[in-house]
């Protein structure tokens, strides 16, 4: 069991803390103990930085998180079994991850839930923040915000799917 002491990301929760602190000067120390943070859907903790991720996801964890990140629900157990077995059938895990991810991104259920490219380009900063939180469970650094914004702005053909695919196949996404 792993114990983490981190802040929650829920905006309402933050707002509540800020209001409470503004109302009185008493100092509050909030300690939150998390178990199995990857699968927590309702209370998602935020990493302070990418450096905190030092453990490799198992195939089961990787596929589960992929599914829950895209479908906003837990993966059905038979689907998980099938995908874990399929993933075993190819030695190049980057390749088989790509096949599995592409099939999910093509699923109308997922596709229809994606932000539009117009949404992305209308507020790139917001898109970047949201995407980092959604997939990396952390806020982007200033450098990351700047760099990714530049990539999106310079290439008008980059789509939301391109960005999502890159995050979900990136090395950081393999760790927690």
């Amino acid at each position, binding site marked *: 069991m792993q114990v983490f002491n981190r802040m929650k990301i829920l905006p309402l929760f933050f707002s509540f803390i800020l209001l409470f602190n503004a109302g009185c000067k008493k100092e509050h120390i909030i300690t939150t103990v998390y178990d199995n943070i990857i699968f927590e859907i309702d209370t998602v903790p935020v990493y302070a930085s*990418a*450096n905190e*991720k030092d453990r*490799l996801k198992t195939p089961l964890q990787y596929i589960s998180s992929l599914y829950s990140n895209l479908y906003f629900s837990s993966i059905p157990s038979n689907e998980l079994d*099938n995908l874990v*077995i*399929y993933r*075993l*059938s*190819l*030695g*190049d*895990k*980057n*390749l088989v991850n*790509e*096949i599995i991810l*592409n*099939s999910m991104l*093509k699923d109308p259920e997922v596709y229809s839930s994606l932000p539009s490219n117009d949404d992305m380009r209308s507020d790139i900063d917001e898109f970047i923040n949201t995407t980092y939180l959604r997939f990396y469970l952390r806020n982007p*650094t200033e*450098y*990351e915000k700047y*760099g*990714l914004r530049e*990539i999106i702005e310079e*290439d008008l*053909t*980059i*789509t939301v799917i*391109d*960005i999502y*695919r*890159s*995050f979900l*196949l*990136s*090395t*950081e996404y*393999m*760790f927690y």
Partner: protein
Amino acid sequence: MQRRKFLRNTALTAAGIISAPYILPSGRLFAASGTRLVNHVVLVVFGGGIRNQETVGQQYLLNQGAGPGGNVMYNMLEGAAPSGSLVYTPWEPAVTTPLSAQGTLFKHMRYAEGPTGHFNGHSVVLTGRYTETGLNLNINPEYPTLFEYYRKHSDPAKSAMNAWWVSLDLGPYPALNYSRHPDYGSLYGANYISPLTTFGDYADDKFSTLNALHPEELSRLNTVKTFLDKNFDRSIVDIPGMVNTAEEKQEIHEFILKLLQGDIPVEWPLPSGVAGSNLTGDLINIASAWKIMEQFHPELLVVNTTNLDVCHTDFSGYIQNLHKSDYGIGWLWNKIQSDPVMSNDTIMIMIPEHGRNLEPNTITDIHGLNAYDHTTDENSRDIFGLVVGPSDIVNHGLVIGSEEVPNGQSIDIVPTIAHILGFKDDIPSYLLPGGVMDEAFV
């Protein structure tokens, strides 16, 4: 005078080229020293556990006292078929000349040490090291695999596209594409594929409508992913699994999708007029291995068959599967000989991973025939090997070894393939206790 000086300088230059050390890009001082016999090797772990009695012994039912002897492997071995009491449906052979006449048959080889388990047997053939009882099925082997030796010691270095491990079953077998040896490992691993799953019903349902990414999509993926990876303190080498180059990964991706979508037609190893319902997992695996060969022309490919393990409960099914697998091997050799790249430039080696017991277990099949396990008795250590290839490289029609004086061991396969592909002398000698099956070569 000038001519003499020219000749002397030429000679000195040539001598310098021959004798001077050369620092290779890999950091090695000397280039790979061996000369290749051919450029392609196909290793068939002709497995599931096969008794020599029913293969090279050609005893058919004689050994059980239930019928005549005879050869049920018309494609691999010379010999007359059983005269009657057929418990299998005979197929017309795929080859006009049995493979033993196109190569050297090691009639009795030894699986000398360790348990005769399927994964143990595969590990021995692929690492050139005998295994112990406590072999861990869940992790990569301790000693380097054939694939790692090939990729690390070939010069110039070979990409994973040249090394394939085509396995019928999943279980522990995916772990045999590279070892956990500190000097080798996933960096030198082979492409692993288990076609029954990769192209199975689930894949057909789930992935057959996918398209490979367009070059523009790949370029954008590469741009963004590179940026993201640059900001994370781990790299791809921290993730288990072998890695293809981006281009080769894409080639394999397209190949898989095209096969799923039927854009690459698949031929099955079946005689004409025989229905597809006669296909076994062994034959599907062999057909898939051929598709990989036809598409990528790898220099080293290992494919296995395992359906004969039905012999634990069904001797007749074992004979039938032996007959079918033998057909598949003949069919595969024909395909290789019909390929412009691999024809006359390929050596194929077949060896069971281990044998089976001399004494039957207590189970009989529908024909009243005894079934056999493989529990490490002496009979289960008696195996055969067959090496086929071009007549100017491989001795044809030669039969070596007897029950009394076996010749060769399971652990000889790795050094033999290293010899064929010219990197044997670059492998540290302490890693490989086996030797080259020299008798096979001209």
